[in-house]
């Protein structure tokens, strides 16, 4: 079964339902919903859409950057939507939800405060599931060229002739 995790399908139907139930568990602003960004359209072929939504939330909770939109986290974890990884991810997310339920929540996505989700993740940070997801994010998130400008990082400069005439020594506050 192929389902599409987009604002038209999963995000609208499920997120709106969830936001009614548990608030902004999966934060996507109205502006973003209105913007029909192809980058965010995401085919989910092997994972349940709910699993992918949880994984994206988990990714943000591991490396929370408030100025980085969800689509970049989604890109960072979409590689798990393949046959040989889906079972591990489904099992990991099921365990995560079970841990959340143990704390009286409907599931991981139903936990409102980042701190509570973070504590839950901390309690399972030695698990292979957590370590796989965290390790993958180091490159999956921070090696996206589209993310770099959000941190001010300029990437390569050779094509522009380096910084010799473009501010390598322009600091003015010392």
């Amino acid at each position, binding site marked *: 079964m192929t389902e599409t995790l987009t604002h038209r399908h999963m995000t609208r139907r499920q997120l709106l339902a969830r936001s009614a139930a548990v608030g902004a568990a999966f934060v996507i602003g109205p502006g973003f919903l209105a913007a029909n960004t192809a980058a965010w359209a995401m085919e989910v072929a092997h994972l349940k859409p709910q699993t992918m939504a949880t994984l994206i939330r988990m990714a943000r909770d*591991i*490396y*929370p*950057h408030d*100025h980085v939109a969800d689509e970049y986290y989604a890109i960072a974890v979409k590689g798990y939507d393949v046959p040989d990884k889906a079972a591990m991810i489904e099992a990991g997310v099921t365990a995560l939800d079970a841990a959340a339920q143990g704390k009286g929540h409907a599931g991981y996505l139903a936990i409102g405060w980042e701190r509570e989700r*973070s504590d839950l993740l*901390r309690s399972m*940070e030695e698990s292979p599931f957590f370590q796989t997801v*965290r390790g993958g994010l*180091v*490159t999956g*998130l*921070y*090696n996206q060229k589209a*993310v*770099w400008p959000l*941190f*001010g*990082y*300029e*990437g*390569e*400069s*050779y094509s522009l*002739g*380096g*910084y*010799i005439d*473009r*501010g*390598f*020594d*322009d*600091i003015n*506050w*010392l």
Partner: protein
Amino acid sequence: MAAPFDLNDDTVVVVIGTGAGGGVLANELAQKGVSVVALEAGGRYLPEDYINDEWESFGQLAWLDPRSTSGDWRVAKDFSGLPAWIVKAVGGTTTHWAGASLRFQPHEFKTRSTYGNVEGANLLDWPIDLAEMEPWYEKAEEKLGVTRTGGREGLPGNNNFKVFEAGARKLGYTEVHTGRMAINSAENDGRFACQQTGFCFQGCKWGAKWSAAYTDIPRGEATGNLEVRERAHVLRIEHDAGGKVTGVLYADRDGNQHLQKARVVCVAGNSIESPRLLLNSASSLFPDGLANSSGQVGRNYMRHMTGSVYAVFDKPVRMWRGTTMAGIVQDEARHDPSRGFVGGYELETLALGLPFMAAFLDPGAWGREFTTALDSYENMAGMWIVGEDMPQETNRITLNHELKDQYGLPAPNVHFTDHPNDIAMRRHAYKQGIAIYEAVGATRTFPTPPYPSTHNLGTNRMSENPRDGVVNRWGRAHDVPNLYVSDGSQFTTGAAENPTLTIVALAIRQADHIASQMSQGQL
């Protein structure tokens, strides 16, 4: 006879590895008319091939053959399969190196005499001293075009340096400048001046930084006396019944094995691969590995006492702009036991791009403590700490018989545990590095743990007495008269300085020695 050479030509000198040691040695021998076959495990990449993208470049250049780690060092936990960050390519790690080119201090050749008996340390004086090395250092500086030597200007300081310099001056440090760098401050030797592009670690696309890949190697080849066989991975060194080496067995790019005969063999595969090759060349005559009657092959592995300090300010720094290693504080490089440790350390600016900063700032860390640091990436300044670490017999390269490489040979295991002196020195350096940044208003500082080793030293060390080490004052194996070690593994001790200049100086000196021994019929 001119290159290319026949596999059965037993008049050639075979050099294994083409980095700062092997690449320079191969060229220097070729310039003297000696026939050289250089076998390089990696491929050939030139400035137009270099990729100014950290991970992509890493995939292009890094040595990623199977390796394992053990010991207390944090690298063994965070990067268990990547003990070292070194290059597999023609030119070796001279592609990746920062360019810092510092001579040793006089006492650093004589640590056993100077530091005395340091418990747990296998200290030994080098059989050579600074006075003997000075002319060779001068030749090396000339070859590399080192700034602040030979009348060459220093490089201009970038933003990262300016923050570092201002803080260091406030602390009262006086030996603060933009370094002695093998990076052109003006056009030199047919190569560009530095364009302040950053990405020094990914290969200099301007060729402003010296690398053997586009200097010594092509110059050696141009003589007709040097043949470089790339993607030729040496598997073992062969010897005759008399204990002299006769050639090397290597696998070509397709995995086909060849035996190249040799008159002399020079091993320059770096301090992990060189001892591994000697150990993998064990035979009935040399049951503990080639040239290992001392038992010191693979031992005394040093990686320098390292660490980094990054700091966040309330305003932008943009440390990635310009030369990666843009300046130095040398005041702490002296030997001054009143600080609570022997030996000293250098502080050198360093910048990582966002992808590597995420990987190396605090490996394994996550959550807001970590991500708020990266949120301030644009406002970060950074420095690297490099100091003398203690040689320890138990820090060593061994063969891991459980882990095989692509040729079925045992992979190297790299075992390392800090000596208490290393820990005391690092603690001091963190404190000073943090103070430098706080002096200019840092709002947050990060004492960052060591990266996978870039300075790999000492595993075939030089000694006066054959009992204490693997090679003599010329890098010649004590046990095997026509076998040489030509890389940083011959270092008796590590000194505080970045090692490349010394590796190059030793290689120039060794070429002189080998050529003269050959002409005298001694080889």
